[in-house]
């Protein structure tokens, strides 16, 4: 299978196999009008298999969203067909407007215009809690 290399854009590599679609939707890539390639189950020496996403446009990617879904992803910025910058993502300490609190008793369920904020409370088990009601996501 041949996927053209991109001139100016972003490559998300080392995505855990099966997580590409979640990243695609949670980053809002379905709303872009440029070419976006989702390559699933690519052979990888390090990971066995992995997913890759290529975005054919300069785009301000939300690293917290990626870090929350899959903190081992690498983000490469491509300019003029060459690697310009490589970014490693990490588990974010805070999630702002990435997830909504599901607790029906939480103030975020009724208050308009409020930011949905979660704080990382347990890094080992990747547990985030709503800063308002402390429910986990």
């Amino acid at each position, binding site marked *: 299978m041949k996927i053209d290399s991109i001139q100016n854009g972003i490559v998300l590599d080392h995505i855990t196999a099966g997580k590409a679609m979640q990243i695609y939707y949670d980053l809002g890539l379905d709303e872009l009008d440029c070419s976006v390639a989702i390559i699933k189950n690519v052979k990888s020496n390090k990971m066995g298999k992995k997913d890759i996403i290529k975005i054919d446009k300069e785009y301000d990617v939300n690293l917290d969203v990626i870090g929350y879904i899959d903190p081992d992803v690498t983000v490469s910025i491509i300019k003029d067909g060459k690697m310009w910058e490589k970014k490693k993502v990490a588990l974010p300490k805070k999630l702002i407007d990435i997830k909504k609190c599901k607790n029906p*008793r939480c*103030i*975020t369920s009724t*208050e*308009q*215009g*409020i930011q949905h904020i979660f704080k990382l409370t347990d890094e080992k088990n990747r547990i985030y809690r709503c800063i308002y*009601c402390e429910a986990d996501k």
Partner: protein
Amino acid sequence: MKHLIDPMDLSPEEIDDILALAQDIIYDKDKYSEVCKGKKLATLFFEPSTRTRLSFEAAMMELGGNVLGFSSADSSSSSKGESVGDTVRVVSCYADIIAMRHPKEGAPKLASMVSGVPIINAGDGGHNHPTQTLTDLLTILREKGRLDNYTIGFCGDLKFGRTVHSLIKALSRYENINFVLISPRELKVPEYIITEIFEKNNIKYREVTSMEEVIHELDILYMTRVQRERFFNEADYIRLKDTYILDRAKLKNAKEDLVILHPLPRVNEISVAVDDDPRACYFKQALNGKYVRMALIMTLLGLKGVMR
């Protein structure tokens, strides 16, 4: 600017200072009678309350200050659809400090993010009730003479009981406290209390369903009401409401110096016949609530050093 939203907002040293100040107020009330002269407390109660609201208002009055506010959401602009954020922004223009109760969890946290004056959480849904915690701590200190080294049993609705969550958090910072959690399976403490308070800090705890089985071990028994307003399903409330009733017969096996606490209001979970027992401390607890709120108001307004 300091707020009190979660009991953990106060360090153990700050709690010690507030409790010491409350005890000094009890010892010499006159000394504090004009400390808040010219200051206003707004009580924003979006949910009904007797003790908490009146004790806040009495506390401010005894400090020489004034009070304004509302006692139900129906009598505020929230009935017209005003957001909590806007209500608090407006009220913080009129008052020096705000005590707020709201049925939604996290509402006081939101208020603290937009307010120009200190916010005190006077209860948010089934989440936290830090001023009740200060009340409980003052009562334990006065009755037991210490805040560490005992076995405390929490009984009843441990799932929605915000006073329970707040007190467990606060007590987790004191040495050698053994927690016994007595509840039906449906009303056990939330999972985050187990993982992030007990397990994370290696604190001894036990979950049981029978009060009779453990009452002889307890130094303090903290009773709670099964709260109708926290249930979405009336049938569940009716099924669970009479699970635990403390009466004279059950107290026969309890220690002579047991301290029985209850945040009140009670319905029938403590028999009226227990009220005369010297171990019943829940009405003293209600009185302590006023003194500890006086100490808290002074602390958050930065008036600790100002007195006659």
